[in-house]
């Protein structure tokens, strides 16, 4: 019963950590637009936190490069389990128009396991909300204290 109660509460209280890997800020503005009175994500219990230790959902925008991949990995590892990663925007999905650049690693999935992909350049706030709701279902199903995928085992495989 306790397990069901905490799982039910997860859906009602997802705290977001928003990390900008190197986005042009187009996606970031759309993500922040979700918190404004028009969309008001707080009515679903969403709080945009600035602290990975409090976060449940990591929302990443922008391409990953060799400078910030360690920061991204570090943020992911600091989040207590269970946790969900949502890649937002074309750049976070695949590297976007920058994917051929010499300093770019590519999409977020090359560094950390991604649960939900939200395409768009830039994404619409509605698409971000849809993505978060998809992520919530995965967040609920994940076992507490254990993530389905460990950090590393996906990223290493993709990189090779």
């Amino acid at each position: 019963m306790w397990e069901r109660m905490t799982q039910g509460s997860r859906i009602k209280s997802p705290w977001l950590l928003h990390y900008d890997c190197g986005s042009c800020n187009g996606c970031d503005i759309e993500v922040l637009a979700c918190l404004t009175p028009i969309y008001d994500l707080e009515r679903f219990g969403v709080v945009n936190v600035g602290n990975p230790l409090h976060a449940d959902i990591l929302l990443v925008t922008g391409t990953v490069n060799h400078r910030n991949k360690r920061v991204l990995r570090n943020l992911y590892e600091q989040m207590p389990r269970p946790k969900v990663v949502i890649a937002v925007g074309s750049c976070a999905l695949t590297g976007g128009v920058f994917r051929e650049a010499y300093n770019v690693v590519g999409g977020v999935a090359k560094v950390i396991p991604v649960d939900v992909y939200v395409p768009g350049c830039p994404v619409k706030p509605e698409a971000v909300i849809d993505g978060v709701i998809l992520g919530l279902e995965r967040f609920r199903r994940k076992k507490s204290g254990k993530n389905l995928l460990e950090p590393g085992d996906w990223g290493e495989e993709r990189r090779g």
Partner: protein
Amino acid sequence: MNEGLLVAGFALVGAPLLGGLITGADRIITARLQARIGPPLIQPFYDVAKLLGKEQIAVNVWQVFGACAYLMASAIAVVLLALRTDLLVILFTQAVGSVFLVVGALASASPYSQVGAHRELLQVLCYEPLLILVAVGVYLHVGSFKVSDILAWQTPLLSKLPFLFLALGCVLTIKLRKSPFDLSTSHHGHQEIVKGLLTDYSGPILAFAEIGHWLETVLLLGLCALFWTTHWLGMILLAGATFALQILIDNVSSRMNWRWMLGYVWAVGLSLSVVNLVWVQAR
């Protein structure tokens, strides 16, 4: 004896529920003041239930100890208030709890946590003298520190101790972590020092700190209610009006720095208290 146990048990169950609902109402009213709809009333309970089910990441054992001691001290203070014991014992128990929360934050090497802890200590330094002076004023007027004697008093305390009530309102703004005094940590997701005092609390121990905060909210609103003890409706109205004013102040003011807080709270709060004490004594 049996009745005492019953009251204590009721307070232990009822106070967190009441505190959570008050926090939920606070979030809705704040959202409405910002032209948003806001979360459901029981949102704080969802948050705490989720946090309790998350993985425990603790910096060291002192952090866990600090959070647990804070929760325990807040619970004991609320129970002591419900049992109508000594006002001073209640205030000192609550102060011990606040210090343990700081101990837990200082257990981490994170600069955000450290700065938040130091700011919290400054806040304690600001409001503790005022709380003691409120108790002293009540003693000078009623002739006893006992909550049972205050409840038996025939005229509302507010009529003779209005300035001390204002000082208590000042304390409430600091303790409820409302602007302009939400220096050490605030209810918002973002702060200039990430989450300040609570930066390194996460998962279940963050939930403990949150429940402790609910209990403190109930305790302080209970102290406000003591200023109108002649009728239960007056108690509820006074506590409710004070809380509504706190939310309004929170939304119309911005965060100030600790120097301003120390100067303002000591200058205004202490002079209000002293004027009231002199007035009570002169009669």
